[in-house]
């Protein structure tokens, strides 16, 4: 299934009409030790670029944005117990939430893995 990336360092895996969202390995490396994650409630309506979740490192709180419009279908409850999953497996077990896709066309403007790698290399 295709994976897209945002300039705000979220990834989104698309599987039919549902997508899984998290933050990238680059992002977790920048944030450092993650001690708290606040995922959105099921049913929350998200709009592209709007606040979706909060990730707190030892140092600071950072917002995680919705990569596309949609409705939250599930937050990753495991992160409440083990926020460090975002450090150890950011693009796997450390996913943040699942959502419906309100406008699949929005995916076209996101980056693929190659483009995202080039984007990070230029930061």
């Amino acid at each position, binding site marked *: 299934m295709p994976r897209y990336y945002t300039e705000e360092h979220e990834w989104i895996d698309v599987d039919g009409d549902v997508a899984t969202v998290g933050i990238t390995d680059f992002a977790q490396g920048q944030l450092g030790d993650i001690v*708290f994650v606040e995922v959105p409630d099921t049913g929350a309506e998200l709009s592209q670029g709007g606040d979706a979740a909060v990730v707190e490192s*030892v*140092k600071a709180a950072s917002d995680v944005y919705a990569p596309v419009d949609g409705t939250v279908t599930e937050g990753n409850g495991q992160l*409440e117990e083990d926020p460090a999953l975002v450090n150890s497996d950011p693009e796997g077990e450390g996913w943040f939430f699942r959502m419906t896709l309100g406008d699949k066309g929005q995916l076209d403007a996101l980056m693929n893995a190659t483009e995202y790698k080039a984007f990070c290399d230029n930061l």
Partner: protein
Amino acid sequence: MTETEQTGEEAAPTATLPLDAWHRAKGGRMVEFAGYWMPIQYEGIMAEHLWTRENAGLFDVSHMGQLLISGAGVAEALEALVPGDISALKPGRMRYSLLLAEDGGILDDLMITNEGDQFGVVVNGAVKWEDIGHLRENLPDDVTLNHNEDYGLLALQGPKAVAALARLVPEAAGLVFMQAIPAEWRGHPIGISRSGYTGEDGFEISLPNEALEAFADALCAMDEVKPIGLGARDSLRLEAGLPLYGHDLDPATDPVEADLGFAISKRRREEGGFPGAARILGHLEDGPPRKRVGLTVDGKLPVREGAKLFDGEDEIGVVTSGGFAPSVGAPIAMGYVPAGHAVPGKAVAAEVRGKRVPCTVTAMPFVPHRYVRKQGG
């Protein structure tokens, strides 16, 4: 301690410290702090924090201002600006004190060492230029102030600091907390004090800029020493209950409100004669209207600087420092509450992103201090 202290337009270009390249070569992630590029972390704040509590951490604090003050009547001149008993400070001893504004508000917190023929004063990097201006304006003409920019400052902190430092400078092991000596390393004149900002046993070492790198390398070649960034410095001092100027202390706050009454020496309490004495002595006598306290936090959500504190619907105060405490394994904070709430066990709530987080006022430090106050003790 935030990652960026510069306010923007008027800020000067960020300066580099003598160890800049050394930090980068060690993998330090550099951020702007107090006008300098400084390492916020190397391998990670959590690991560096815990390493310092168990081993020895090396901190570069060369951004701090190292001032030398001398001349006839220098102790009395300093006593006109700080509330400590400087006249009674013996050679080789140091004292924590506060630079006070006319109204008793705190302009900075600092360390004053009697170096025999002069006083060494170490001030915060973020306000050192303001401090120097204030001192120049207020010290009498026959007292001389030198800003020693030829020396850097390193801190070696943690239970294994003494063993590590003694391999380079054996006499360091003979010091007790808040004692300082001049020494020599590879022909360089250096200064060593047993002091720090982590709550652990440890040392601060002042040495010529050209000797910093070799000295840092000599320490980091030892198994028990790793370089530690500003991030862990902040979490360590927070656990130790130590305030950070510009966050927990500011010109609107006096020493009694800041729970730093210990810095007002007995003789000075009796005699006064320091800035804001009427207000400060009044607060000592009758209690301050508000006070800096520690807060333990229910749950895992970090409560950070700026969070408002509530008792029921009443906004009663504000958090001035807070975050996850690696050695506690939970979030902690410090902040200001009204005197009536400054009682251990008092329940309050902090507001974080619209949510109320239950907190409990607690005595500090959060992690016991491990200072070495007497030899063999």
